[in-house]
């Protein structure tokens, strides 16, 4: 122990010396020179004193020293820096070798950089989305509890009825606490501009369950989440900064929201988000969840989302089975409402993530394969270089270089190469991550907004590239020692075909690349094909030049439904007078805006059945020209008319899907339906509505989005069932100016407190629908393209090397009368073999990989993959074969240009 300490101290002590002699080896040498000269002089003088002649004296002194050069070398070694000096020389030599072959170096470095960069970007995104750490205390113990249908409807993430939530809380063995919440939104009034923000009603203990506290002020107290308690609110950091200029005095002050007065209780920290994984904008204001006594005891109204904290040591599975018992008990006690309903526990961290997992995994695999191809190529290049240099290595061995020394030098070169590749790759990774954050469809994947290059990911990618450099630079060095010196020197002098062993490995690698590339290409082809077929889907409406925006009237200010109707009809009139506006309408929501409600209903003369796809319908109110503005065609009967007023006979227009599902081939016109209330709202709030006579049928529209099912739809005149929160839709002339701005100004004149929000064009909504799809198709295609280019480089490298190795052979063949075509075929045959093997394996890989792709698409986007099938597969194979052959043309042509005289004279 002691001696270890001392030797360490010694080492530290002498470190400056070592560094000096390393950095200034020349200076240290000069120093030694002078010292030895000093000895010679002194010894010479001494010898003269002893009576020698001057010349004798100097000679004797030199002999006593015993060879100045040898002594200097010994002194150099004594300085203990040989190891470092060798490394320095290896580095220098390696750099020089790299400079001497700029093409080789650039290709290898670029390929590695591409692989490392792309991987860093994609895996950083993975990391951001899949492994985000929730900003809560011990987030791993938080679970979300949802309803699950035990019948075959497949619903497994249903919101929860309050009474059930209440009963669950008796299950205290696995859970320590429960909390509930509900999404909503608020109109913030006062100040310069009104604003609509996303809000959540939360039970008073929710923040406690999450284990977080407000940055300023306090959380909610128990007793604040009952109806009639004074209104309090907690603000998000972003809202506080934006609307209240980050003023801490806002705590305790009052703000106006939905035309009511709220006292600000607290402000959350910047990193706080709740709920996470909610598609759409973040919640920016939290208010207490105040349910009426009626709501609280309801088992029908599925109002709540529930989070709970597991006790330590309890697994999700244990908690699930415990709560399953409670649910079964409830189903027995309340068969009417709870039969066939179970519970489903999800780790809170999975919220909104599990859907993307498949897709991200797929992209990760694809990009990982690109890195593999890049590494295989670099390996090939290094192997080729190594074999090419076998002669050089042999000569050096013959001159006395030890094997370890050679290995180290080749290793240094390989590592240098991959180091530069990795370095450039880090740069590309940073750029790629930025690009990804910009290109990502943040409406559906908000986590990607803040994606930044991940350290771990970078390290792994770098490690892989360094490992490649290491492995494949050392391999040739090791094979050198396996071959007899004599044999190799002879072979490289006279052999004509090159070693078989190295070639087989290289050809195998290239065939593998071709296989992986083909599999990727086929996946990309499939996804592009599906994409374009989805793009051809007729949405049933005309998105061109239609703007939609939301507006909400507070019932406190506009108490009477007549007031709403008159406000909106005035608003429509106003909008029509704006230059560039062709037509305007009001409706519950624009197509794809997902704003309508889902209602239960029954047909007159038929009983109210159980709740299923057939007995619920999308329900929307609309003003008469809604169909004109959105370009939805009428297929039977009439549309909605101005004459369908408040006191007239209640009418409805249904879509084709509705007519077909309910009446089959019978004429739906004149049939009467009854609505039985919103499936999400309290059943007590609404009872069966008036009889609605069907007067018209419109064509089906992709109301929920291009990739979704077509729901049954019922439209009623806005005047007959007014509402306060609606969409304003305007059809503009092509190239109209700032229409939303103009609309905002006109409406502000009518009521300055009520904001117009979410102004978007239908085309935008349309684009958002397939943003994720396009994003994935784009990335996958990019990766497949990268793979193709890399494989082409790979095959080019191998063939070019083989040709350069065999130029003697070709020369001899030509000299013996072979034709240049035959030489060409000889070279291409090699390439053809590699391509054919690769294509064969690739086709075998295609089935499982497209299978995976199909599953990922189904999971994340509910899409079915349209298989490209018999047309594209052969085309892709032919394409890849052609690319490979093209990549070989240059070296093959070079082979035919071999000059017999030249090659025979060589060596």
């Amino acid at each position, binding site marked *: 122990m002691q001696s270890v300490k*001392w030797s360490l*101290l*010694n*080492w*530290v*002590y*002498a470190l400056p*010396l*070592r560094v000096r*002699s390393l950095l200034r080896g020349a200076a240290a040498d000069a*120093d*030694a020179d*002078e*010292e*030895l000269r*000093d*000895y010679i*002089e*002194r*010894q010479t003088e*001494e010898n003269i004193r002893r009576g020698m002649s001057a010349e004798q004296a100097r000679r004797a002194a030199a002999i*006593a*020293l*015993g*060879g100045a050069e*040898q*002594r200097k070398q*010994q*002194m150099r*070694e*004594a*300085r*203990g820096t040989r190891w470092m000096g060798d490394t320095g020389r290896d580095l220098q030599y390696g750099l020089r070798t790299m400079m001497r072959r700029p093409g080789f170096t650039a290709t290898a470095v670029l390929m590695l950089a591409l692989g490392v960069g792309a991987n860093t970007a994609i895996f950083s995104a993975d990391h951001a989305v899949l492994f985000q750490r929730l900003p809560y205390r011990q987030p791993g113990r938080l679970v979300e509890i949802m309803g699950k249908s035990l019948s075959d409807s497949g619903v497994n993430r249903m919101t929860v009825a309050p009474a059930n939530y209440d009963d669950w809380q008796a299950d205290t063995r696995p859970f320590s606490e429960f909390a509930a919440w509900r999404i909503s939104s608020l109109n913030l009034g006062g100040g310069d501009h009104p604003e609509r923000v996303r809000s959540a009603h939360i039970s008073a203990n929710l923040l406690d369950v999450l284990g977080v506290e407000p940055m300023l002020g306090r959380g909610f107290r128990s007793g604040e989440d009952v109806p009639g308690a004074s209104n309090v609110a907690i603000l998000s950091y972003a809202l506080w900064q934006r609307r209240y200029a980050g003023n801490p005095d806002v705590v305790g002050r009052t703000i106006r929201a939905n035309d009511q007065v709220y006292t600000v209780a607290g402000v959350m920290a910047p990193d706080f988000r709740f709920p996470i994984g909610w598609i759409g904008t973040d919640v920016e204001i939290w208010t207490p969840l105040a349910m009426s006594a009626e709501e609280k005891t309801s088992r029908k109204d599925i109002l709540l989302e529930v989070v709970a904290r597991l006790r330590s040591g309890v697994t999700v599975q244990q908690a699930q089975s415990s709560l399953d018992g409670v649910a079964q008990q409830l189903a027995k006690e309340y068969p009417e409402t709870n039969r066939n309903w179970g519970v489903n526990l999800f780790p809170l961290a999975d919220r909104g993530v599990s859907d993307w997992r498949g897709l991200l995994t797929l992209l990760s695999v694809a990009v990982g394969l690109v890195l593999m191809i890049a590494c295989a190529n670099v390996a090939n290049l290094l192997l080729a270089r190594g074999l090419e240099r076998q002669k050089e290595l042999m000569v050096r061995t013959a001159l006395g270089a030890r094997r370890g020394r050679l290995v180290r030098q080749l290793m240094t070169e390989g590592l240098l190469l991959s180091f530069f590749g990795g370095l450039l790759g880090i740069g590309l990774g940073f750029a790629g991550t930025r690009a990804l954050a910009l290109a990502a469809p943040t409406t559906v994947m908000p986590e990607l907004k803040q994606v930044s290059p991940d350290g771990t990911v970078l390290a792994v990618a770098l490690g892989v590239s360094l490992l490649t450099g290491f492995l494949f630079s050392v391999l040739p060095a090791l094979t050198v020692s396996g071959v007899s010196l004599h044999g190799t020197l002879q072979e490289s002098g006279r052999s004509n075909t090159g070693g078989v062993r190295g070639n087989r490995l290289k050809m195998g690698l290239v065939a593998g690349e071709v296989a992986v590339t083909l599999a990727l290409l086929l996946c990309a082809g499939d996804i592009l094909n599906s994409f374009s077929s989805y793009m051809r889907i007729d949405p049933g409406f005309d998105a061109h030049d239609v703007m939609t925006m939301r507006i909400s009237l507070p019932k406190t200010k506009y108490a009477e439904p007549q007031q709403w109707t008159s406000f909106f009809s005035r608003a429509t009139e106003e909008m029509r007078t704006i230059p560039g506006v062709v037509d305007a309408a009001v409706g519950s929501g624009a197509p794809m805006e997902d704003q309508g409600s889902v209602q239960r209903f029954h047909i007159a003369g038929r009983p109210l059945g159980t709740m299923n796809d057939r007995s619920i319908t999308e329900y929307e109110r609309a003003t008469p020209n809604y169909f004109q503005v959105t370009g939805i065609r009428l297929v039977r009967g009439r549309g909605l008319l101005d004459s369908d007023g408040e006191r007239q006979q209640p009418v409805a227009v249904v879509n084709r899907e509705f007519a077909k599902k309910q009446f089959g081939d019978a004429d739906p016109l004149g049939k009467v339906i009854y609505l039985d209330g919103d499936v999400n709202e309290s059943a007590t709030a609404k009872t069966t509505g008036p009889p609605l006579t069907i007067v018209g049928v419109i064509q089906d529209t992709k109301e929920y989005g291009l990739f979704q099912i077509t729901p049954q739809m019922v439209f009623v005149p806005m005047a007959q069932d007014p509402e306060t929160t609606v969409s304003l839709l305007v059809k503009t002339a092509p190239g109209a100016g700032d229409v939303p701005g103009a609309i905002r100004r006109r409406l502000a004149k009518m009521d300055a407190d009520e904001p117009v929000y979410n102004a978007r064009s239908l085309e935008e909504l349309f684009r958002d629908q397939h943003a994720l799809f396009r994003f994935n198709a784009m990335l996958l295609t990019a990766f497949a393209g990268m793979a193709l280019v890399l494989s082409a480089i790979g095959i080019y490298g191998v063939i070019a090397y083989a040709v350069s190795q065999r130029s003697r052979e070709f020369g001899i063949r030509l000299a013996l009368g072979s034709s240049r075509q035959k030489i060409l075929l000889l070279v291409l045959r090699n390439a053809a073999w590699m391509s054919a093997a690769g294509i064969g394996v690739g086709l075998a890989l295609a089935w499982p990989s497209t299978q995976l792709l199909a599953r990922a698409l189904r999971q994340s986007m509910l899409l079915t993959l349209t298989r490209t099938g018999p047309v594209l597969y052969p085309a892709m194979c032919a394409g890849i074969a052609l690319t490979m052959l093209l990549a070989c043309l240059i070296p093959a042509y070079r082979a035919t240009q071999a000059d017999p005289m030249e090659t025979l004279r060589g060596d």
Partner: protein
Amino acid sequence: MSKPSDLVQGTLDLLILKILGLQPLHGWALGQRLKQISGEVLQVSDGSLYPALHKLEHQGWIKAEWKPTDNNRRAKFYSLTVLGRRHLAREAANWDRLSTAITGVVRLTEG
């Protein structure tokens, strides 16, 4: 080649450290002193001193300094470091133990 064959491994280092422990010396003077003290018994070639000195310097046991000497010349003077002094004490004790033991054994076989 660098070390005289009839010196026990490591002995040269000990001798150098001991002599430098008495006074700082330059290489040539060190050689002279070595011959003088050991009465020419220990045949140390002058040339082998220098690598040994450099090694000791890099081990941190001695330090070197260019200093002026007689008639306007400079020479590289070596002296013990604190660490070198400790090392010397330890090595000298080791040497004592070793030589006592060897002497004992040698006498035993003779007697």
